[in-house]
């Protein structure tokens, strides 16, 4: 197991492994996305209060979930990279940061678009919205910090520490709606126990969440492969690949 892990984290092996995995992940993404979109936009009935406006849930919830999941993934990768000095970890972090930032921005924008007709305001400084905005700034901070430090190893270390410190924001985002009075509603999906959404609306939502996760995996692997080629452009196996 340890040996296998060590082998996989070498750039060349990971590059080939990712290449073999990509078509499968891509196919899964397309299937799930097709079902999720059709189910969410056509099959699911309108909500009793919000009518068709509730359908933004099929983009908003997966985006918000991914924005937090990607951050945790990056923080874990950064910690592993710090402890074991694995170069691949930093490449994964570099590849994920813009993705995480985009999902966070999308979650904020879709939420705002829904908030105006439903709540009556584009933006409210409640705990959930503010902590999600801080998450966006954390992502932008990681991206900025990386490009501000020319030395790659030092940049990786600085980003890793920022990521590890910032991970405290994740439970705050998740529990903000329970700890404080917020305008944002509580969680609809429950990991344990029954969700507070009708099954006919739930299934497309779960499909969309899975589709977004696989989409993230696909783009992450593509970007990481690109990063590997960029960093190892002088090594022999990359030159051989070119010819």
């Amino acid at each position: 197991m340890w040996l296998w892990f060590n082998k996989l984290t070498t750039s060349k092996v990971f590059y080939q492994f990712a290449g073999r995995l990509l078509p499968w992940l891509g196919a899964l993404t397309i299937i799930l996305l097709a079902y999720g979109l059709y189910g969410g936009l056509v099959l699911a009935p309108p909500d009793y209060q919000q009518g068709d406006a509730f359908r933004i849930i099929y983009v908003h919830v997966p985006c918000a979930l991914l924005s937090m999941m990607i951050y945790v993934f990056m923080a874990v990768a950064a910690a592993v990279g710090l402890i074991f000095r694995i170069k691949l970890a930093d490449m994964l972090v570099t590849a994920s940061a813009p993705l995480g930032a985009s999902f966070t921005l999308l979650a904020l924008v879709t939420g705002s678009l829904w908030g105006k007709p439903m709540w009556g305001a584009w933006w409210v400084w409640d705990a959930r919205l503010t902590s999600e905005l801080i998450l966006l700034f954390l992502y932008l901070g990681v991206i900025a910090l990386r490009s501000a430090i020319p030395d790659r190893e030092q940049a990786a270390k600085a980003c890793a520490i920022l990521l590890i410190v910032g991970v405290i924001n994740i439970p705050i985002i998740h529990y903000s709606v329970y700890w404080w009075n917020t305008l944002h509603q509580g969680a609809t999906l429950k990991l344990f126990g029954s969700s507070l959404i009708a099954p006919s609306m739930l299934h497309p939502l779960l499909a969309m969440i899975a589709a977004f996760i696989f989409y993230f995996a696909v783009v992450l692997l593509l970007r990481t492969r690109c990063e590997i080629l960029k960093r190892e452009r002088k090594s022999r196996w990359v030159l051989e690949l070119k010819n």
Partner: protein
Amino acid sequence: MNHIHKQRAILIALIISCVAIAAGLALYALQQNINLFYSPSQIAAGQAPPAHEFRLGGLVQMHSVHHDNNSLRVTFGVTDNKNSVLVQYNGVLPDLFREGQSVVADGRLDSHNVFIADQVLAKHDERYMPAAVKTFLKQAKS
């Protein structure tokens, strides 16, 4: 995992726990400022700032909404099932506003303890269901 790895892992765990404690203390200290709104019971207990703008949150009391015939002025009660506050508002209400619905109103208390709202926001709950299910539930109840 050798000796050095273990040391680094412990260091990272230490950083995380220190930051968690710091954040926990800061949030605990700011608790009142992070709450978006005061409930009618908190206002009755005198916790809301007098002569200051603040937000009031609760349910719109059943059969309490009165629309003025000649203007946008509307009055309604906001309750948390223990205490209630009368709210006066002059403007367009959000789509989700209805009796029994949660709302958050921005404004201040006047001298007669009526809440003069500048803005009324509707709070949506975490339940999603088709219209047919809702009517079915209503029939089952009555």
